[in-house]
């Protein structure tokens, strides 16, 4: 089975995870087409190919894609499935929303407007729907799956100075005993919206999630590497090969179950 993996910087942990999968079935053949997030969200997909359109207008992106992948666009016609790796699923915006609003019976936030659960869900849905890529199976003609970007680290303290999202997270960890539930709820709704768009979303591996806060256990945010295996400084957002291995195994189990009996590995 030929699988095209398209992704951003979060694809690195998945690649390293796949590299460590024991007994990766021979019929599974992975091809990687990745780039940094700032380029990734500018790429497009149709039933023939994925990558950069109008490359001549974006020479810098074209150059980076060619340097990393050998081409600015890749044909999808020879593949059986597509796996999107590391696409954002709106969780950062959800944390931003919760940092600025109270939600009745869900999230107390003094000195802010309070939304009803229904009002919050409306906002949540807009956020989640805005993060569904337009690359579903109805566009590609082949099954499309997604392993989204991991949730932020549960240990935000080292990163408080780097971005407001970590400060929001710190406050939410203190204030909200139901953050785990909120993020689980959001994950399920995101998967449902993506399914409507022809994309199967795999949940974040259960073993990687703090059962208290719903954020990523810090052990998975250590010793991270780029897709080329170079060590990178921890940033609270990216995860390591151990996470990637769990995600890869979940994915292989999923596609194995999704396959017709006679071709299962």
């Amino acid at each position, binding site marked *: 089975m030929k699988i095209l993996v398209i992704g951003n910087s979060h694809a690195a942990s998945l690649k390293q995870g796949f590299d460590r999968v024991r007994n990766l079935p021979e019929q599974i053949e992975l091809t990687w087409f990745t780039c940094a997030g700032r380029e990734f969200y500018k790429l497009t997909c149709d039933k023939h190919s994925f990558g950069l359109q109008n490359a001549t207008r974006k020479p810098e992106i074209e150059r980076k894609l060619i340097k990393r992948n050998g081409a600015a666009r890749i044909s999808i016609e020879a593949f059986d499935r597509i796996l999107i790796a590391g696409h954002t699923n709106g969780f950062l915006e959800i944390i931003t*929303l919760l940092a600025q609003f109270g939600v*009745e*019976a869900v999230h107390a936030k003094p*000195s802010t*407007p*309070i*939304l009803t659960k229904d009002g919050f869900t409306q*906002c949540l849905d807009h956020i989640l729907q*805005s993060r569904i890529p337009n690359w579903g199976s109805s566009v590609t003609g082949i099954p499309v799956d997604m392993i989204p970007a991991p949730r932020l680290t549960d240990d935000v303290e080292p990163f408080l100075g780097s971005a407001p999202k970590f400060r929001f997270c710190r406050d939410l960890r203190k204030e909200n005993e139901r953050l785990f539930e909120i993020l689980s709820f959001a994950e399920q709704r995101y998967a449902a919206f993506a399914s409507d768009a022809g994309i199967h979303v795999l949940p974040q591996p259960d073993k990687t999630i703090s059962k208290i806060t719903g954020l990523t256990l810090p052990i998975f945010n250590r010793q991270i590497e780029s897709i080329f295996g170079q060590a990178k400084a921890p940033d609270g957002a990216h995860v390591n090969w151990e996470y990637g291995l769990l995600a890869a195994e979940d994915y292989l189990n999923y596609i194995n179950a999704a396959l017709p009996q006679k071709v299962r590995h």
Partner: protein
Amino acid sequence: MANSPYSKLPPQAFWRQGVVQRHENAIHELYTPKFPIRKSDRFVTAGSCFAQHIGRSLKEEGFNVVDEEPFPQRGLKAIPVETRRALGFDLYSARYGNIYTSRQLLQLDKEAHGDLELTDPIWEKDATYFDSQRPNIDIAGFELAETVRENRKHHLDCVRQAFSKADIFVFTFGLTETWAHRASGEVYPVAPGVIAGTHDDETYTFKNLGYSDVLSDFLEFRERMMSRNPEVRFLVTVSPVPLTATMSGQHVEIATVRSKSILRAVCAELYDSFENVDYFPSYEMTTSQKNQGGAFASNLRTVKPSAVELVMNSFLKAHGYNSELTIEGGVSSPGLAEDHDMDSEDDLVCEEMLLDGFGSQ
């Protein structure tokens, strides 16, 4: 021609030249500002649903429109403006929704400054709870009455902040008809039972404010504002949108004229009496015979976006800002002759139109 007091009057003093012969793009001639405005002035807006157009237009043109209870923008661009508005945000200078009457405005100011505690602040519907003063802000309703109280407390803090910041307070008078709590006299933006609450004759009563009511309400409000903020100026308008329904017992068209006439007369009195009150004739610009009804959509009630554009561009032009505002759903070229028909209400958040559902089909 014999000398007469009329012989030296400008063309706009005469109906034939001022109205019949007026170019359709020259509607701005109806308005001569009493005082100048600057983009840096802090505008606080409130009023009936038509007032939303004023706030939006000023914002779009880069005026400093105060919003003390905003929908946070940072990191939340995915949430569209329609949803933000449906939740009561991005409409006015705080999340108070439409303020249809002078009484409601005065009441809000008193409550925000601790001079009034509402007798009936919470309405119930199907075991959910609503703010009786703004039941439309989050239409699902809250699970707990306490949440409504807490939310209102935060809201009143924002109202107090907003009102204290006003260099120019813009108010659009919308209605004289209102519903009141019999015992306390408190009024509501919408009748109990329409969105939430339950109507009963023993608790609630219909009230149709008269000229002296509206005038005294606004005079008291003005006094209160000026006691805290002596430099504040007022820009008042009358909504050209007719009543959706009337409880007065009169024909709705007669009731509309009564209501608008009173509101217009109060504006005239305020304009004539106070240097710091200006009147912007959006009402006349929209309802002018010159338009032959063309400013209204096919329901004869909704103001066409093209007409709103023309009115708001006239306001800005009169103040020296050559604007070509585009109102959502409107057409950018001026003139009211375009056939921009609308059977439904426009994109304003407007509780009053809910009354239409009570009419027979």
